């Protein structure tokens, strides 16, 4: 358990930032996978749009989302190499829609509050 009282300002900010990013990352990954990508290509595509994610976070996240049925994957050859391509599943598309509605609602509320 993290003892918040003992954290410095930067530690505290880092913890809160990670907490804030955690949910947003999932939305970003699901949205980006409306188009098919393999792991590294997805990371680059997200980074190009300003959403940097560490490899050690992204690749396990992809597998988790697939286990939850939100993504589908298949091994396919591209440039003479076998790669695992991920894309949004039907369930994933439905959940993404709901998450985006929630996100937009939260965003407008926050804009009004702050």
């Amino acid at each position, binding site marked *: 358990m993290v003892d918040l009282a003992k954290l410095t300002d930067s530690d505290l900010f880092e913890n809160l930032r990670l907490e804030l990013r955690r949910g947003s990352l999932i939305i970003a990954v699901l949205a980006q996978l409306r188009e098919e990508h*393999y*792991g*590294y290509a997805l990371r680059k595509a997200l980074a190009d749009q300003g959403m940097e994610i560490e*490899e*050690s*976070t992204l*690749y*396990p996240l992809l597998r988790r989302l697939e286990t939850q049925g939100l993504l589908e994957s298949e091994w396919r050859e591209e440039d003479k*190499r*076998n790669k695992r391509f991920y894309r949004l599943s039907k369930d994933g598309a439905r959940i993404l829609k709901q998450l985006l509605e929630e996100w937009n609602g939260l965003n407008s509320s926050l804009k009004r509050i702050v």
Partner: protein
Amino acid sequence: MKLLERYLQAVRTYLPMSQQEDILKELRENLRGQIEDRESALGRALNEDELAEILKKHGHPLLVATRYRQSRHLIGSTLFPFYWLVMKIILAIMGFGYAVSVLVLIAQGKPFFEVLGALLSYVGAVLPTFAIVTIVFAVLDIGNSKFRLLERATKATNENFNPRTLPMLRPASDFPDGKPISRFKTAFELFFSAAFLLWWMRVSMIRKLALFVVLGPVGLSDKIPFQLGPVWNIIYWPVIFLSLVAVVQQIVTFIYPDRLKFYSEMKLITNGGSVVILYLVTRVNDILAIAPGVSDPWEFAETLRIINMSLHYTMIFAALMTLVECFKQFRWLARVRSSAATSASTVI
């Protein structure tokens, strides 16, 4: 690329067996993609340092592999507050049981080390209890995450909850001590009152225990050159009476912590009586005296004088503190009576 394979081999060590091949195959392709990108940017193959830099940035094999494992906890945040509450209650009940058994052993005049052993056995009993409660809650947590047991169990309670049945708000001034009476504090007081009573009734074991606590191993010696002075014989029965009143009050308060008037009246009696007794003790010079059989009483005369002087001032301080406590209880009782009289006249 040997370095890449060495890296993947290191990651493999920490991966779950069933997913090793699949994860490593994917990881290899992702890292290759990254390496090729870098090579196209530089227009040449990467040297070992550059490759090592990419792998270092990717992360330590142990950390990379742990991200692929599902995070696990023994007791999750939903059940943890219940777990902690149950643990505290069980340990408190055990503590009370052990305290009672220690008092019984003392009253039976059992040898000192038997009593000490009973006290220490509490620590020995705490560890397995801690383990059992933790295991039970860990199993409950698994059940809860699979079958939402807590949600189902609390659903009916939540539906039947009526905020109108909650206890009325009570300001701090409603309580004689300025705050609600804690059962834990009452149990603590009860234990020490009972121990004091046994000590006062000259149960030799608890006297030895008290001397051991105050003086250490020396207290166990039979050659202590001091004993209580004659004044203690005069106040013997009054102290027993006041201690019994205190024990009764603490038992009642433990069972009914809301009987505030009874609590305050009994406190007034015991504190008032204590002030009188402490005053009587401060009036004499020999609170402690030389024990009979000491071959050379003059050898201890100076030490005895210093001890008696310290005890004298300690008693005065204790009397003043008890007087303040008396005054607080008296003022609270007077206020309760006057507000009762006011509300009675309003009704008339």
